[in-house]
């Protein structure tokens, strides 16, 4: 018993107090800043370096739904045309807003990207239970989603938790590119969630197929037939990216 108490004292308080503004290492690759002014004509070095074809030039845009945040474009550009900032708040309710460009700078992104639909706030502001379905997820997204509930991030303090059963959930969090083999189980899980319900896509695979977009083992029809409420980029999304997106979505301060 004494050892347990000593351990508890040594351990101290490890929870991040303010999840909205914690310090993250400068090296973290979060929201990219685009500076097309640096681009010479006919240069497409960044686009050529991108493993998921997330970048288009003229005008310069980067699709965060496809981006795996590998940093290859940043390294390929000697002029600072694309720089990854350590900003982790990247979730959005609109697929098209995942396409970052110069016109859509940081402020645009930060202020308006999560939809205020009213409904999610009314129903889920104090409590949101989510059922996660891995449909080809490589375990990185799954590890980060689990980390959301650990003592550092403690997502539960906002009333946001993962449930074991879809019956107890208010929505699904889908990770992975949605394999053919998981497509039916995903539909079943969705059907089992009671109304009103939301769908959250987490990670580049779920958002666009990611590195597996060209695989012939995928069946992404689920996304054609069901409305997606929240898109959370990353490969995998950092726990702070996920938690902040969900908090914004349900309107918690």
């Amino acid at each position, binding site marked *: 018993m004494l050892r347990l108490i000593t351990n508890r004292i040594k351990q101290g308080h490890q929870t991040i107090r303010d999840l909205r503004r914690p310090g993250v290492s400068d090296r973290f690759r979060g929201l990219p800043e685009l500076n097309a002014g640096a681009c010479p004509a006919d240069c497409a070095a960044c686009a050529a370096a991108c*493993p998921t074809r997330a970048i288009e030039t003229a005008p310069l845009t980067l699709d965060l739904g496809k981006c795996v945040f590998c940093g290859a474009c940043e390294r390929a550009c000697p002029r600072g045309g694309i720089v990854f900032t350590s900003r982790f708040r990247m979730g959005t309710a609109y697929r098209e807003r995942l396409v970052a460009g110069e016109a859509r700078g940081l402020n645009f992104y930060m202020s308006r990207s999560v939809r205020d639909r009213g409904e999610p706030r009314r129903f889920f502001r104090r409590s949101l239970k989510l059922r996660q379905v891995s449909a080809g997820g490589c*375990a990185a997204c799954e590890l980060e989603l689990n980390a959301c509930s*650990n003592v550092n991030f403690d997502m539960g303090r906002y009333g946001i938790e993962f449930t074991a059963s879809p019956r107890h959930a208010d929505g699904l969090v889908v990770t992975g590119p949605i394999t053919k*083999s998981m497509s039916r189980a995903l539909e079943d899980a969705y059907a089992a969630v009671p109304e009103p319900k939301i769908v959250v896509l987490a990670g580049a695979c779920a958002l666009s197929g990611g590195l597996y977009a060209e*695989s012939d083992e995928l069946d992404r029809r689920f996304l054609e037939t069901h409305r997606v409420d929240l898109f959370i980029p990353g490969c995998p999304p950092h726990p702070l990216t996920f938690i902040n997106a969900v908090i914004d979505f349900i309107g918690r301060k």
Partner: protein
Amino acid sequence: MNGTILKNGKPVGLKDIPVLPIGEFEDRVKAEALDGLRVVAFFGAAGGRDAVNLYCVLADDENSRLAAFATLFAGDRTYRSFTPDFPAFHLFEREAYEEYGLLPEGHPALKPVRNIFPAGSDGEVYPFDRVEGEEVHEVGVGPIHAGVIEPGRFRFSCLGETVHRLDIHLGYQRRGAERLFLRPGAPPEALLLLAETVAGDECLGHGLAFAQAWEGLGGADCPLRALAVRGLALELERAAMHIGDLAALSGDIAYLPGQAGLGATRTIVINTLLEICGSRFGRGLLAVGGVNYGLDGDIAARVRANVDAAEDAADRLCGLLFSSASVLSRFESTGTVSPQTARALGMVGPAARASGLSLDVRADHPAGPYASFPVHRLTLKTGDVFARAYIRRLEITQSFNFIRGLLDGLPAAGDLVAPPRPLRPEAFVVSLVESWRGETVHAALTDASGRLARYKIVDASFHNWSGLEQAVRGNGISDFPLCNKSFNLSYCGFDL
């Protein structure tokens, strides 16, 4: 040992791999397996005009050598199954049957490996193992499980609370990863990122296995500084995942000090990777021919400080965990795998070492950073949950010591990447890495124009899921989560 002798990561010409007549191939496999060689890879590859080559790679761990040979099926696609004599072949044979129609005659359970909805069927038709008897009941689980984890289907056959048989059917995660490596024109950097997601929790293990294979085929010499960073990162990944596993094991038995404290300790370690390369999993750290981030500035000093802090915390928490009677009563004698079973199934990694098998690629087939920094082999004997947990504790310390050793002798900063060279045409390479989960195998074949023609991946999980099936026999079904977590196997690493 006969056949072509291979070294880890060193290519040989495809013409140097003997293609034996089927009878001779069968005799060769049996003779080598009887001699104690271990199957590392066993896979089909298109051999042109309806023909299929079957490649067999066996490991002679004591002598740090691999043997490779092949046979060609032109018309008749049958051979005598090796599984009845050597169970370690059972999944490899099922896989080659599923992918290339090579029929192993006499295979005791020729069931699907990754096929969930076979052509022509409307539903899932997997024939689960059954135990007959009036009082037998079955418990079905999955494909979606109760936690935030990957999918797979389990079927338990129980008498009362006791599990008599467990059959695991995977394949739900199949993304066709191996074929994506063969896309024409895909740059190696993109393939490296793909390798990192073969099993995202073994990002560095699979990434390194790919890099090693590619560099072997191209003949690139990775700069020394980059080799050191690679070793350091792989050991950080190992320590982080082992600490996370001990946290999860603590959670499964409601030992909250362990769950909370070790969970937070893992954060220190993965945030160290974040400081090195911008990703908590080490994504983007590796480059083909080296690394993208070389511990510049004061990062080496910060890595050392973090490693010291994490080791202190892990030591303190493991001290509590492994001296608590309530923990030991759940861990000890639960989910036991005997050394004989582990060897027969071809188990690898910490799970094998916990059952007394001295297998560690870092020591047995050293390459890259491990060629100049040897790693001591660790084993435990009991093969239960306790041993699989405690071997992790030992390996955490080992990894941290290894990292400190690398930091003490860090080669001077300089070039981090050796320029890539074209791949050697018509060559064959086997790249082995001891990731935290065990032996990670990437085998590659190139065609006449120097492009990848077949890419084969064997995750440690491919061997070890069968170990879990055996481990739970005779245990209470409520101990299954504990057994499962003590293995912590990959679904997508298996499903590819």
